[in-house]
């Protein structure tokens, strides 16, 4: 996990708190990342992203003007390759769930240590998603909510968790590491990772379908 690709990974930091922004940028630079842009608000981030082409964006969810969720959605829409890691000072709440549905590949609370943060970015770079136990709890709840109030999507399918995925998510929510989960369920580390990522991908896909349906309806209504 510690080996970085030969070319330094390009990172953008979006945080309205100057102290945090600088501390994050410094930590990342020291760890060998190339911090190509820092932004204090969403509009700035959206302006800087196309020019500086970051591979990873670390986005604080509470931003002035544009919200972190909106920034995440627009960054992901503009460049699907860009991987967004959401960061928030207050605990897991609705905006975390919204950010993940909008395309963030992971979420970290700001109380995480420097090592935890760097490990998280390492995983994001490696194409994995970053789950906190809190996020797993929120996602379990979201699937349950969708099962109770099925929203009619275009293809008529409400996303559901497989039994295995539920099992894995519950263990993540109980604080087990992927390695521990793999051990307990007798799976490979990779398989556990795939299960977790699938739970996220299904929600994101569902969210996109919903948004498209909504946009279509709005347009039909406008005609």
């Amino acid at each position, binding site marked *: 996990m510690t080996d970085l690709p030969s070319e330094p990974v390009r990172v953008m930091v979006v945080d309205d*708190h100057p*102290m*945090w922004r600088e*501390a994050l940028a410094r930590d990342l630079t020291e760890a060998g990342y190339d911090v190509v842009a820092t932004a204090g608000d969403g509009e700035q981030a959206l302006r800087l992203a196309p020019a500086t082409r970051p591979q990873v964006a670390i986005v604080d969810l*509470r931003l002035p003007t544009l919200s972190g969720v909106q920034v995440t959605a627009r960054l992901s829409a503009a460049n699907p390759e860009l991987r967004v890691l959401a960061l928030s*000072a*207050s*605990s*897991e*709440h*609705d905006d975390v*769930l919204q950010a993940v549905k909008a395309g963030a590949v992971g979420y970290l609370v*700001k*109380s995480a*240590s*420097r090592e935890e943060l760097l490990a998280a970015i390492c995983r994001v770079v490696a194409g994995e998603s970053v789950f906190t*136990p*809190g*996020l*797993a*709890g*929120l996602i*379990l*709840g*979201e699937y*349950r*909510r969708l*099962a*109770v109030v099925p929203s009619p999507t275009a293809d008529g399918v409400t996303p559901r968790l497989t039994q295995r995925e539920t099992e894995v998510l*519950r263990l993540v*929510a*109980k*604080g*087990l590491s992927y390695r*521990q989960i793999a*051990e*307990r369920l007798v799976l490979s580390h990779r398989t556990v990772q795939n299960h977790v990522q699938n739970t996220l991908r299904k929600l994101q896909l569902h969210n996109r379908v919903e948004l498209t349906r909504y946009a279509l309806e709005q347009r039909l209504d406008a005609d």
Partner: protein
Amino acid sequence: MAFQTQLWRALGVYRVLALGYASVLYVRDAGVYAYPGVGWLVLTGMGIWTVATLLAYRVPAGRRWPVLAADMAVGVGTVLITRLLDTPVRIEAGASTLPTIWSAAPVLAWAISGGWRSGTVAAVLIGGANVAERGTLTPGNTRNIVMLTLAGVSVGYVTELARHSELALARALRARATAQERERLARGIHDSVLQVLALVRRRGVELGGAAAELGRLAGEQEAALRALLAISPDQDLDGPRDARVDLRSLLRALANPRVTISAPDAPVLLDHVVAQEVAAAVVTALDNVRRHAGKHAHAWLLVEEESDEVVVSVRDDGPGIPDGRLTAAVAQGRLGMAQSIQGRLRDLGGSATVTCTPGQGAEIELRLPRQECP
């Protein structure tokens, strides 16, 4: 004031209808008046005044005392002038005045504007004019005075009542808006405080030594503040009235740097007695983690709401119960704890199971059948 605006509009309608009534009566009686020509002039003047007041009372600026006084003067004047225009015989016989019920309009205007006291004064003035026109107090004009006073008092009273309740409503709305704004500001401030505390904790731990202690303290305060923010404000207000409480709020109060809580985004509502019992069972479980897995053990709480039950899991990352090497003391302690928690859950119709996975700590799962919504 919305209600008062409606009353002014109603007064306008009344005045027009009353003018129509007065005109019909005058058309019938003009022939027997002493000076029918002047009578027509007076009636025309009443029409002009009707239009003038309709315009004046349409806006709040026109509902002032000079206009109201003029209104009263016109009302009194039209009543009194009848004595000069009509024949003494008809007046003796108790014929109605030229403006008839049109002269009640100023009474209503005064009542709407100044409440029941003004209404009463206005009723006395118009009533007095009626008596003066007749020259004496008769059963007929006494009845008129009573009717006018009744109208003035009741309309005035209703107006005051409406004004007070509208003011109270406006005050309540303003207070709510202020509270919401304060809450919004507080959230912003709390968020900044959380950021700074998190930063201090991070840097402190990195610097080590005395700074690490500061960092640790900041971290504890950060967790405490976060738990406080997680309790929704309306929860406290609705507590006594609504017997159902959000289990998440109760459990979030237990969060600290070594206890992580995961829960759905939506409230997990339970009867407050049941929720307290579950929270007490969780506290017991956490105490047990501290006692047996060590001070530095981490614990995770997971709250789940299934279609038919609520599941709360408590897991720690302690050594668990070493396979085959159960010392008597550990077994005693753990089993004692488990029995106490199991007892609580059984009383609530649920269950508690303890599982240990080597190297992955111990786990207690509390399952509680969900109550039907009342």
